[in-house]
């Protein structure tokens, strides 16, 4: 697929060589091919449209280096634009000096919230901070057990209240316990829910109101498709997110939904999950993600090299 993409670009721009500048007319075919690639990477349609409009505006009139074919110049611009939109990076958990920092993870069913609780705990433990995990998923069968197993594996305490039916009360009690025990960080593992499930979204808002988390992160499955704009939009509206974590990027998903989520929420992408083990959490790097979504690595590399040489000469 990648080859046919490049082939398409080559022929689309053959006629351009040596023309010197990118124009509306000569960019059209190339933009169309980039757009197609992004849709195939699962970037939401509306996000692709806005992005392409923005890119073509930036690219218009740009000089094409003599050593480059115009399409290489365009793809390079698309790539840089993607990087700048996916950034800036901010892997900090913004821990407070005094009192516990409350982190809440939320998202659709099965996105990776509970596993990510473990991964964040591991990260904190490396800095000699022992968080308290709070089992606020009272919905999924054995969700509490799952968090306890994870806590045991990492030697991290887990607060749960099996008889309790109210996640708001569980979160409150968990936070109180962390204050009492002196944990610097509390991580709330909430139940997965659909963004269109009004009852459960309202419940999430009540937790938010009751314990005022310092950091609310949306955990998004890296394989998500077009619906990402809807779900991320709904979670952001309900909670005012502080960050996004995208999971399951250890496979071959291109992860275009991340661009959708970023555009809709505007909040920083904190980490990506790259496996089931607790150490499989990486700080987000826009460059790698841009390349992954676009999948035109060789063209970008060629263009960059050409620019580097010209910059050196000048």
């Amino acid at each position, binding site marked *: 697929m990648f080859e046919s993409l490049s082939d398409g670009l080559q022929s689309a721009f053959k006629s351009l060589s040596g023309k010197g500048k990118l124009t509306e007319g000569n960019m059209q075919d190339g933009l169309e091919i980039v757009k197609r690639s992004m849709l195939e990477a699962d970037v939401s349609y509306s996000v692709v449209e806005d992005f392409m409009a923005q890119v073509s505006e930036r690219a218009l009139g740009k000089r094409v280096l003599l050593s480059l074919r115009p399409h290489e110049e365009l793809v390079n611009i698309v790539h840089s634009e993607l990087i700048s939109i996916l950034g800036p990076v901010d892997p900090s958990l913004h821990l407070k000096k005094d009192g516990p920092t409350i982190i809440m993870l939320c998202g659709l069913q099965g996105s990776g919230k509970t596993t990510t609780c473990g991964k964040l705990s591991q990260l904190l433990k490396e800095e000699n901070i022992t968080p308290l995990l709070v089992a606020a998923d009272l919905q999924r069968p054995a969700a509490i057990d799952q968090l306890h197993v994870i806590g045991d594996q990492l030697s991290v305490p887990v607060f749960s209240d099996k008889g309790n039916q109210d996640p708001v009360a569980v979160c409150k009690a968990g936070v109180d316990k962390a204050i009492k025990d002196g944990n610097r960080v509390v991580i709330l593992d909430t139940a997965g829910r659909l963004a269109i499930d009004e009852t459960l979204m309202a419940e999430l808002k009540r937790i938010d109101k009751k314990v005022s988390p310092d950091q609310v992160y949306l955990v998004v*499955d890296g394989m998500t498709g077009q619906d990402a704009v809807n779900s991320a939009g709904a979670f952001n509206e309900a909670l005012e997110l502080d960050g996004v974590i995208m999971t399951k990027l250890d496979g071959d998903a291109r992860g275009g939904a991340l661009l959708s989520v970023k555009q809709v929420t505007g909040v920083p992408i904190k980490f990506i999950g790259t496996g089931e083990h607790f150490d499989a959490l990486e700080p987000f790097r826009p460059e790698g993600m841009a390349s992954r979504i676009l999948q035109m690595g060789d063209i970008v590399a060629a263009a960059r090299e050409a620019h580097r040489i010209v910059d050196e000469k000048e």
Partner: protein
Amino acid sequence: TKTRQALNTDIRDLFKSEGRLVDDEFLNELFARLIRTDMGVASAEAVRDDIGTRFRARVVHFDDILESITAQTRELLAQESTEIQFAESGPTVILVVGVNGSGKTTSIGKLAYHLHSTGHKIVLGAGDTFRAAAVEQLTVWSGRIGCEIVTGKHEADPASVAFQTVEKAIEIGADIAIIDTAGRLQTQTNLMQQLDKIRRVIGKKIEDAPHEVLLVLDATAGQNAISQARGFSEAAGCTGIVLAKLDGSAKGGVILPIREQFQLPVKFVGLGEGLEDIAKFDSTTFAKALFE
């Protein structure tokens, strides 16, 4: 709450009551709506171009176009049968596979309940010996249903749990064994080979088993589901799909290209987290909901 209000896939918006001229702008809008179902660029282009060929420069009405697209989709998804393929004699073995978190364990619970309540005797096999509390999760489901479950220790060989499950089914005269597996990504070669081993071990006990290998896909998934269908079919010989989480706002349109490329029938759809939230796949309902 499970309404479809949040959807912006309403093709009706495209059509004023007096009809609209089918031109480039119209076809672009149509394309956008098609893409939003996750059917993918190629399928969306095919539908768009077909409409273009047939209706360009004409003024059309909603019902004409909707009927046309829905009919095509329904035709593509029309399938022999969504029934489970039962063994001729002895227990029917169903193996359930899929990527992490797609809905395997929950779908097993719901499917088992459905089969149980239609008079079958079920045994569940907790073949996910890897993920934290995966065994406990399936055990809760078996309790809700009131059926037998075979479990192994944490990190036990999943193939041996599968073998014991089939043994148990034979021993107690159950007619269906449903075996859970740990979530895995189709790119993880070793873990994919493990599925083949599970298959072979089951086959040692009952010759033509597993009779069904169900791939659970998450309806929120985008184009990666195609790679999942390919990878799991190759490694585990899938016989059908369960499309989970179709109660959300995602449309699950990616099963269209999957159907085209791999002929895998969708057998069930997941519509929630409760015991009864599963339904047989119906191509007419699905096609209609896709463009609602």
